[in-house]
């Protein structure tokens, strides 16, 4: 289901992430590009080791038009904290502080720093562009690689066929900190994503966006399929659009009937090896995740 065309957005024409060396069709770069149009040029950006920093900062080709710095892999949220603190101490005015980190840099090696930053109620936006593996180093399994996905460290072999563990519930983990604002989004649901970046921008305190950003290279799809596959993930219920605001969970897009997962998954080479039993397991895992988040939404919400 496509978005209403009447929702005309007036986005800045400024291109603050241009000339980067991401793969053709890269979902992650779209997440960065759109968010920076909302935040504008008076923004301090932090990116850890990962795709977006690797493609954007190879001297002398520097693709960020606003202030931007690469942090250590584990240190995105702590470098953001230092920047936020310095901006206060230096009495800077009219600026935003944002970090863009991948799934590995957020949910694995970066989780400690993120947790500490939320705990300290730091004033910045953290956007996790989730391409569901360590893509920059060549498609290795991360904590957010979904069940069954083939990666170079979770290959489809005879003994084990693809990732054997489920995706960490990153959104719930972050929300459980009592964060000021958190949301999930995709690079395809543009209006929804922009709205959530705007909410994050207006939040005083820490905000977190978990954005599904398909990777043609790592997922084994054509370069022009990026947005369609993101929509497919939502339509199959494999990606839940939700928000955590004012201490309450809210599901943005609920549907009674999900599209069948088989076609959506097997159209991606990383899932091509899945058999019937795998698909049943994935469906079961998806249903379990929906139940949990619906419980979190509670009787009043959802």
């Amino acid at each position, binding site marked *: 289901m496509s978005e209403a065309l009447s929702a005309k957005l007036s986005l800045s024409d400024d291109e603050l992430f241009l000339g980067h060396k991401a793969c053709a069709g890269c979902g992650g770069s779209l997440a960065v590009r759109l968010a920076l149009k909302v935040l504008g040029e008076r923004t301090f950006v932090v990116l850890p080791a990962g795709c977006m920093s690797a493609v954007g900062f190879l001297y002398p080709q520097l693709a960020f038009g606003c202030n931007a*710095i690469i942090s250590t892999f*584990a240190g995105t949220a702590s*470098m953001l904290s230092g*920047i936020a603190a310095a901006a206060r101490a230096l009495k800077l005015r009219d600026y935003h502080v944002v970090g863009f980190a991948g799934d590995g840099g957020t949910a694995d090696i970066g989780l400690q720093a993120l947790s500490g930053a939320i705990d300290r109620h730091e004033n910045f936006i953290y956007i996790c562009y989730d391409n569901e593996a360590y893509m920059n180093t060549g498609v290795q399994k991360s904590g957010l690689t979904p069940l069954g996905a083939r990666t170079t460290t979770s290959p489809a072999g005879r003994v084990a066929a693809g990732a054997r563990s489920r995706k960490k519930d990153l959104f719930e983990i972050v929300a459980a900190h009592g964060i000021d604002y958190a949301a999930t989004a995709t690079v395809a649901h543009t209006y929804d994503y922009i709205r959530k970046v705007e909410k994050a921008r207006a939040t005083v305190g820490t905000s977190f966006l978990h954005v599904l950003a398909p990777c043609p290279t790592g997922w084994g799809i054509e370069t022009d399929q990026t947005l369609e596959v993101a929509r497919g993930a939502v339509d199959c219920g494999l990606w839940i659009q939700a928000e955590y605001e004012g201490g309450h969970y809210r599901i943005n897009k609920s549907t009674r009937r999900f599209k069948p997962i088989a076609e959506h998954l097997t159209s991606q080479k990383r899932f091509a090896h899945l058999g019937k039993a795998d698909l049943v397991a994935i469906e079961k895992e998806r249903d379990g995740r929906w139940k949990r988040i619906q419980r979190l939404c509670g009787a009043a919400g959802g």
Partner: protein
Amino acid sequence: MPSSSLASTMQSHFISGNEAVAWGARLARPHVIAAYPITPQTVVIERLAEWVAEGQLGSEFLHVESEHSALSACMGASALGARSFTASSSQGLLYMAECLHYASGGRFPIVMMNANRALALPWNIYGDQQDSLTLLSSGWIQIYIEDAQEALDMTIQAFAIAEHADVLTPVMLNLDGFVLTHTYEPVQIPAQEAVDAFLPPFRAVSKMDLEAPTNMGFTAGPAHYTEFKVQQHRAMLETTRVAAEVDAEFARRFGRSYGGAVTGYRCEDAEVVLVTLGSVAGTVRDAVDVLRDRGVAVGMLKLRFMRPFPAHEIEQALVATRAVGVLEKDISFGHAGAVFSEVASTLAGAANRPVLLNFVAGLGGRDISRADVEQMFVDLIAATTQPRERVRFVNVQETNNV
């Protein structure tokens, strides 16, 4: 020493080495302090936290969740042109090891106090110098402090050195764990106005700026990386000159000078010299005096800076020696102590070809007595006539004494 009205307002207090560092940091007015507790550094950050809570220090204090995050946060702050400070020790210092290289390569003039402490395993919270000496290649200026007054003064001087346009390199101030960090001494605490006059606000050269945006911390491939590293190395070499200038200016204003990268004690006519670093220098001076009273021409050379390494000053000081010992609290397993390795390589071409002995002592907080040091001088003198094992651990529990 010319006195100034500002200098004469200094007050004397009975405080520990840690408290002296805390005072130095407070007087330097860092914008951001981000630190994680670890014995025996804790008192430094506790004092700073108290002053912030009382409204006596206006710094932003971040309770980071690890040492890696402490230095990452300091780098973020420094990237905006803010002055930042942190402190750590042993396990924590090693946990942030990645960030040490990051900070020096990033040319962030952060000042960090390190409470020298033994490294696990086994676990040991007491003082030795393994932690910092393991990290000599991390690109940080390394200073070794002898007493509490120096701790306060050098904390202030460290910011002046680090932030100097010709340096722009982070500084690690090393204090022996417990022996110096927790020992109380009378210390003159300068007035805030005097320190403000000495240490102007940090004017960053490389920073992110809303009016002139930059991209920082970028990648440089094989075509460019070397030039950045050469630049970094040369800036480190400039530090010797800048540190001397800073010390001279500090002396002019506060009446105290610390003598440069190395300081000698009765070295001028010494035939046998013991080289050392940190607070044990006090014990060594006593031993030197005992032996001198017996008519033996010995001396001590204290290294205040390990980075940049004062090779020239060491060569000059030891040019007439017959035997040189290096007393240090670390060991590079399978070889020798780090300080000995560097002193020995510096003297490799020396015309006088002194005998060289390494005394590894004080590991894991084991005490070094004056008698121990006297024995080192005796061993050194004996070594000029008979060959001796080059690298020796002092006071090891063994049935056969080596």
